[in-house]
Every structure is written in structure tokens, then in C-alpha cells.
């Protein structure tokens, strides 16, 4: 086929311009896919937290003063907000993990996965509503 160069112009022109990027669109999954994405992101974040956490805890065997210095650095507001993020990530990962166990091991699991996802979100929000104000009071209220 050699005619590909002479493509007739597509009808009267359109106000909607085609996207510039040649890449495909983002796949628009539903609850199942997005819960998987969140599970991956929180899982990776928790992994890196644990990596750092094991290193800083191991420091106490090398030099207790250095350990105190590191732990002292954690008591800044930035780290306080980071801790809130950590609790949020672990909470979501844990609750959604229970959902995945139900999907894998119970015959009713796959049919109710969407409902279970929203239950997970509700429980997670409740968890954060309980935790966040108290925690932020500690971080910013100075006891």
C-alpha cells in the first residue's frame, strides 16, 4: 500500500484536538485495579520504611549517641507528617490485604470484591479520623 501518505483530510475540522502524546490512554480500571495500584504503592513505601527502620535500630549496637541523634531528628514536624503517612499506608495495606485474602480463599470473595473495597476505604478513613488529630496534636502542640 502506497496511499498512506495521501490520507484525505478528516471531515470539517474539530474543536477537540487529538492528544499530542503518542502513548495510549491510561487504562481506566475500576475499584479492583485501583485497589491493586494502592496496594503496590503502599507496599513499596512500607518496604523502604522498614529498610530505614532496621538500619536506624541497628545503629544502637554501633554507637548509642549516634542512635539518639537519629531518633532526635525524627521528632521534627516533617517526620511527624511522615509518620501520619506511614500509618495511613500500613492501615490501607493491612485492610486491603484482608480483602485480598477473602478474595483468594472464600468462594464468595470474588463476587463481593467491590463492596469489600468500599468497606476497606470506610474503615481506613475511620482509622485515620481517630489517629490523625491526636497524632498531629503531639507533633505540633508540643505535648
Amino acid at each position, binding site marked *: 500500500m502506497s496511499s498512506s501518505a495521501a490520507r484525505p483530510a478528516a471531515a470539517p475540522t*474539530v474543536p477537540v484536538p*487529538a492528544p499530542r502524546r503518542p502513548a495510549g*490512554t491510561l*487504562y*481506566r*480500571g*475500576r*475499584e*479492583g485495579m485501583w485497589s*491493586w495500584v494502592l496496594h503496590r504503592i503502599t507496599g513499596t513505601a512500607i518496604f523502604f520504611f522498614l529498610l530505614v527502620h532496621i538500619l536506624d535500630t541497628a545503629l544502637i549496637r554501633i554507637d548509642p549517641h549516634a542512635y539518639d541523634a537519629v531518633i532526635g531528628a525524627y521528632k521534627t514536624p516533617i517526620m511527624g507528617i511522615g509518620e501520619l503517612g506511614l500509618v495511613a499506608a500500613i492501615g490501607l495495606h493491612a485492610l486491603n490485604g484482608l480483602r485480598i485474602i477473602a478474595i483468594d480463599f472464600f468462594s464468595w470473595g470474588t463476587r463481593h470484591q467491590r463492596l469489600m473495597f468500599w468497606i476497606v476505604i470506610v474503615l481506613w478513613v475511620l482509622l485515620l479520623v481517630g489517629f490523625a488529630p491526636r497524632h498531629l496534636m503531639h507533633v505540633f502542640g508540643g505535648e
Partner: protein
Amino acid sequence: MASATAEAPAPAPEAPIQSFTVTLIIRRFDPETMDEPIWQDFDVDMFPTDRVLDALHKIKWEQDGTLTFRRSCAHGICGSDAMRINGRNRLACKTLIKDLDISQPIYVEAIKGLPLEKDLIVDMEPFFESYRQIQPFLIADSKPKGGKERIQSVAQRERFDDTTKCILCAACTSSCPVFWTDGQYFGPAAIVNAHRFIFDSRDEGSQVRLDILNDKEGVWRCRTTFNCSEACPRGIEVTKAIAEVKQAVLRGKA
């Protein structure tokens, strides 16, 4: 008898069905002239009852004959025209224009995860290769009990009824995030078709299939994102079938 048409009062003229202009943005690729796919938009006049496939036909027949896509039966049976419509895998012949948001352009592109050949056509060979690997045929070496037939009860048939509906359109496999990044994964469609025989009471090759799927690239790759169940144009509960195969691997045949 007087002709009924003459006597009957002329039926109130039906309101003519309104047609409207729909913008389709199609991701096009010509391997002979392009390095990268491009997006091209088309305006077509459509009725609400038309399908996306009709819009593609209209473009091909009236505006741009070089538009390339697969279709055969055009009625949701042959499974040729799976494509990504507004970011979700659908059969173009089963997606009505009125079910889409017309105020926005409709994005149409090839399914993901299989090599793009031209416009909306992908190379389906890797997909069929995994399908062949799970041995999608009845394996029964023993003599049928007392006669020529392998009798099956209604309940036994019901056990795998859902997975007999597959038309191998690849909408599920190409909606799977695991398959996008790991082309070695068998993919939902192959597992669905394995399920169809694993749970068939007449079949004697279940263990062979379970061994094939109990592989690094087998059922354990499934991350239960449910994209496959949502994409299936036949409404097969794909993730459920995969979960049942997982259980069969763990506990021996269910």
C-alpha cells in the same frame, strides 16, 4: 379485504430519530511510514442506536479507507473487534454510542500488551500460543462406561458453564496489568479455557493442565485486579474462574 394500510389513520409521524455528530479520536499506526503511533480525529454522523463499529465503518467507507481494524461477524460472537474504547477494553460491535458520553470525544485504540501491527490490529499470536499451551481439548483416554457416551449430569455441566462462553477476543488478557508488563504470563483467557476442561467431569487431563498452570507464569501471577472480569464482553466471571483454578492447584482437583 381492504388494505389495512389505507384505512388505518396515518400513524402520528414518529419523531425522526435524531442523529448527532460524534468525534472519534483513533490511535493510528502505519508501520511503513511511522515510527510512533499518532492520534487522529474524525467527525461522524451517528444515531444513538449505532455502535462504535458502525462509526469505524463509516470512517473507513466514507472518509479514510486506510483505517484498519478487524471485524467479522459484527455481532459479538467471533471476537475479532476487541479494542480499547475510552480507556476500557470493549467489543466495538457491542458498544452502543448512546452508552458513551457523547459530549466528549470517543477514544479508540488497539488493545494493550500485544505487538501493534497497524491501526487497531495487534499480533494475536502470543495470545493464541498461551491458549494452545493449556491443551484446550477434551483429554479422555479411558473407555466410556457402558457404551459410547460419556454421560454428564446437569449439575456436572453447570460446574463449568460460565467458562464455555469464551470467544477468545483477548479483551481480558489485554486488560491485565500483569500481562502488560510480563508477556510470559498465561493471561486470563488461557486460564478460563483451562478451567473449562479442568472442571469438566468427562475430562481426564486436569492434572496436566493444573501442572502447567502451577508455574511461575501461571495462575499465581494473578493479582486479582478484576480488570478481566470487567472487560469480558460475555460476562464471564474471569477472576472467579482463576481463583477456582488456584484452589484446585492447592487442594487437588475441586
